[in-house]
């Protein structure tokens, strides 16, 4: 069972939920930029949430299915079609052998995740499937997909087979069949081109000029073209330290908002380095990270302050809803 890459797209990499445990050795965490979409894509095909999926960026690949496979595509709407027919997002889809999956215009968002039931048959590197491009390890041979690559797929588990069987029976002669139900948008992060993301104070917030802290939470920041998997570079009212002292390097995290001397903040994303020497004004809360990952270059971001208690309550609620989603998928198809 396999999928063949006819065209690779702009940047298509294998990702999972990241490579934890090795930051003390300077190894980045990496993983999906939008962990919510990646987890949902896997759950919809019966996989463990930590299975490998394809992260597809803005311009999607062209893929041919060498065998009938159960997939799902979640996250950005990059206009996917199979044999010319639009494929709906956020639901399981059975693609028949020979099916040709293409992508078109980016209708909204930046990154979508393609999960396949059973998961991609790849070796892990340091306990993860995530592609670490700079080190050339993980994912598919440590690199982005290119033309002619063949992705082998592992057999589905029982849940994946049950979902596939049910859909295949309804497909008849069509090149694919998708479930009539989909993940409710009420459960999703509030994806939009100009999101308001919530942030708690960063370790050095009090080192900033009070006016700059006010500007940070009141202003609108444009997403600059240099933004990538490492960080989102923003431009707005320049942020100034009250006392610009040199900071001793310390670790950073997914969503850390650091401010270099030019005053333009950078939100650190999946491929951030493990440590940084710039002051950290804020930290985007975990549940809002997917919102940033889906903002296109030229889009904008606003920040709203929340307490740590609120951030951790929101996290608890999101994780509880996530457990319910997994259960309801299981109940549909058991």
């Amino acid at each position, binding site marked *: 069972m396999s999928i063949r890459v006819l065209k690779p797209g702009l940047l298509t990499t294998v990702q999972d939920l990241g490579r*934890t*445990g*090795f*930051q*003390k*050795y*300077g*190894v*980045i965490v990496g993983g999906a930029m939008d962990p919510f979409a990646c987890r949902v894509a896997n759950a919809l095909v019966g996989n463990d949430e930590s299975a490998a999926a394809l992260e597809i960026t803005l311009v999607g690949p062209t893929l041919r299915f060498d065998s009938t496979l159960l997939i799902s595509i979640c996250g950005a709407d990059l206009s996917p079609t199979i044999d010319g027919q639009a494929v709906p997002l956020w639901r399981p889809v059975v693609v028949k052998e020979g099916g040709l999956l293409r992508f078109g215009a980016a209708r909204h968002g930046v990154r979508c995740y393609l999960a396949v039931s059973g998961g991609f048959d790849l070796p892990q*590197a*340091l306990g993860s499937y995530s592609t670490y491009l*700079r*080190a050339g*390890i993980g994912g598919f041979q440590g690199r982005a997909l290119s033309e002619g690559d063949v992705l082998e797929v592992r057999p589905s588990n029982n849940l994946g087979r049950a979902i596939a069987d049910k859909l295949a029976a309804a497909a008849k002669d069509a090149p694919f069949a998708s479930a009539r139900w989909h993940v409710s948008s009420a459960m999703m992060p509030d994806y939009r081109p100009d999101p308001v993301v919530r942030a*708690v104070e*960063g*370790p050095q917030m009090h080192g900033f000029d009070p006016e700059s802290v006010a500007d940070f939470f009141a202003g609108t920041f444009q997403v600059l073209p240099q933004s990538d998997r490492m960080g989102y570079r923003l431009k707005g009212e320049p942020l100034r330290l009250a006392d610009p002292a040199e900071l*001793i*390097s*310390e*670790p*950073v*995290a*997914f*969503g*850390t908002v650091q401010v270099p001397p030019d005053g333009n903040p950078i939100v650190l994303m999946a491929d951030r*380095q*493990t*440590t940084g020497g710039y002051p*950290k004004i804020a*930290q*985007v*809360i*975990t549940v809002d990270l997917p919102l940033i990952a889906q903002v296109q270059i030229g889009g904008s971001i606003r920040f709203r302050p929340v307490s*740590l*208690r609120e*951030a*951790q*309550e929101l*996290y*608890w609620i999101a*994780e*509880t809803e996530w457990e319910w989603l997994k259960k309801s998928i299981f109940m549909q198809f058991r």
Partner: protein
Amino acid sequence: MDYLDMTPLGDSAVLVKLGDRIDLDTHRKVQLLSDYLERHPFEGMVEYVPAFTSVTVFYDAMKLYWNRVDARKKILNQEEIPFDIAVRRLKDIVESLEVTGEYEPQTVEIPVCYGGEFGPDLEEVASRNGLSPDEVIRIHASGEYLVYMIGFAPGFPYMGGMDKRIAAPRRPTPRLAIPRGTVGIAGEQTGVYPLETPGGWQLIGRTPIPLFLPERMPPTLLRSGNLVKFYPITRAEYDRWEARSR
């Protein structure tokens, strides 16, 4: 431990500061806490990352509670949030640690082929400091360098202890690609690039031994707390070493 400051780094990490300046005393505390967490990770801890004056502990907010019912009760009733639990665990640990006089850092020796095509900036570092290239090599190779932390790239050591007599500022324009294994100087720091990366350091030599070994455990030659010594090798020795490690 006299200095202790715990602040949140977002909703899934605690920054444990054990000092406010880079010195040996703070470094030992960082090592002590890191060693403890390596051997006794607490329930819900994801990983720890040592730095110059701090250890950052990443946690899984849901796994810090005894069970989900307990989590629901505590979070929704405005009692202990996950951060409070992580801080409580870490306080107990830090208070139980004892800074003893004994300190045996592991020494790692790194062969370096200095100058030539591997060290295009050796002459400049020498002339800036009024030394000959051989004197720079002798001074660089006679030092003992303490690895305060690993960061920037896998296995890249932030080291202290370089002789001021061979200090040199960063290059005005960074190079686009510095080959892996290159040994450089930036200000009063020296380091080795584990991967090919862009960078502005002054390049004085190259080591044939890999610093990042993703198929090995642990995956890096150097760890925080190691003591590094460099020793010069000839180009012929470098080539033999390279050929052997293939």
